[in-house]
């Protein structure tokens, strides 16, 4: 009874407001907007790759990269897009995009690799209409690891771009 009512109501709302938008909204709600993840040393918390968090906007994000790669993985594009939509709708919002690498290799070369990773996100944000003035980016290279130690798991967690809202 309850479910049918919800369905009824949503169908009514959809029918009255929009005929077309139905297909793209999928099943995720805005329930995950609640809190900004904090707590880790740098104000960045490693997150899983759950779709709920990925597509939430505005929501701090971490995107992960393969070894020595600086190309944004296709599964993150929709997430960046969602942040871009928010940023376009909220011109006063600002973002920090920080690129990171694992501990292996040379620090300054890793700085360059980290910047390429940051730019892979920055460029997509800009392509989606976000103004340059809303985005700042930095490479921390291998100097701000989330996980310490020489394990594949630690490496994988450190090869990432952190997207952090500075203001919303």
């Amino acid at each position: 009874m309850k479910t049918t009512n919800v369905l009824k109501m949503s169908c009514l709302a959809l029918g009255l407001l929009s005929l077309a938008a139905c297909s793209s909204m999928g099943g995720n709600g805005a329930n995950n907007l609640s809190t900004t993840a904090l707590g880790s040393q740098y104000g960045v918390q490693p997150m899983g790759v759950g779709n709920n968090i990925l597509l939430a906007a505005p929501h701090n994000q971490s995107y992960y990269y393969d070894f020595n790669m600086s190309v944004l993985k296709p599964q993150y594009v929709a997430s960046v897009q969602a942040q871009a939509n928010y940023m376009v709708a909220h011109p006063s919002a600002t973002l920090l995009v920080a690129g990171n690498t694992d501990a292996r290799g040379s620090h300054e070369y890793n700085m360059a690799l980290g910047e390429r990773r940051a730019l892979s996100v920055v460029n997509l944000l800009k392509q989606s209409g976000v103004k340059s003035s809303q985005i700042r980016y930095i490479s921390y290279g291998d100097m701000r690891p989330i996980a310490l130690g020489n394990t594949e798991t630690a490496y994988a967690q450190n090869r990432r771009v952190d997207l952090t809202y500075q203001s919303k």
Partner: protein
Amino acid sequence: MKKTLISFIGLILFSFNVANAELHLELNKGLRASIPIAIVPFANQQNNLSDPLNIASVVSNDLQNSGHFKVMPVSDMQQQPTQLSTVNFNYWQQSGYDYMVIGQVTPQGNGTDKVNFSLLNSVVGNNNAANQNNAVVLSDSFTVPQSQLRTAAHKISDIIYKNLTGIRGVFSTRIAYVLINRPNNKLPTYYLEVADADGYNPRALVQSNAPLMSPSWSPNGQEIAYVSLANQKASIYIVNVISGQQRLVSDFEGINGAPAWSPDGQQLAIVLSKTGQPKIYLYNLASGTLKQLTSGYSIDTEPDFSPDGQSIVFTSDRGGNPQIYQLNLATNQITRMTFDGDYNARPSYTYNGQNIVVLHRDSEGYNIAIQNVASGGLNVLTANGYDSTPSVAPNGQMIIYANNATVNGSLGLVSADGQVQLTFPVPAGSNLQVLEPAWSPFLG
């Protein structure tokens, strides 16, 4: 006139040779071995060997760690003479120590000490019992504040090392490195530290809650250029080692990194990515002008000047993976230098310019390697697998590097021939991590 004189001399020499018809031998081979030396505890210091100001202990440690000496343990010494007249050379030669050092520390009353020392050749002394003065290779003395006795000891090590190896010692130089303190559940603190060449007297020059990177000594040893990632951006600063005063050099958008001084101290080679790609620029410290040296869609980073200032070596992925390239500053011609393996980075010239030291990756992981510039032959020196940031001593004998095999990291020392491997002492602690060592030039 001149001609006749020459022929006259020639005649004399010739006849001398004929008259003597002396036996002449040829020896074309020798041994590579450590020089055996005994550093006898100095007068007035024989009861406090573990005191950090004990000269004999400091000199022993210096020489032993250079890899070129075999230093006699004090516990093996059955005699501890402090004056030439009481040295029994036969004992020292029989013990196998060709050289020995004796000396005295004499308080001067005004907070200063007079330090005398002599380097003796026990073999010559043993063969010239009649005149022991023949055994004295050199003697010297200086007066220093008591707190500076370590400085005096390093000076003695430098003098002995130079005399017996022919190479200038680096015992009075310093090492800069980055120390990270990661207390649990708190923001990490980053320190740019400077310590003596034996790890003593570490002191923080810069402290920050954001990463500090890439320390680089000015050629006169008075300043250090470094990278700060404070305020969520990269900037290059120069800090005065004595006064601690800082000045900002560069904070463009993107990377501001990898500073390297020109040999004349007038310019900094730096890396900027303000055009979208990390490129190497020349920054004139006096005028503040900037000149772009490399271009194209590739990572160009980690420049280092050749000792003659004529060229710069750097890391670039223009060939697909990081390799070392050389840029001729006069012709702007760029040539690839490394071909061994698919990862060579962070190049630095040895001080004679004949070799470059690099971070090299192969199946054994990331290790320190040295490559001869002329022949191109590459020699891998370490086998830890997690090394980075090699920095060469100003006499080219040793390389200091960061070993990241453990969470805390450590600084390793390896001789340029790979024969000697040592660990450089740094402040220890479960929350501390050490990285990015940089060896100073000769000081003073």
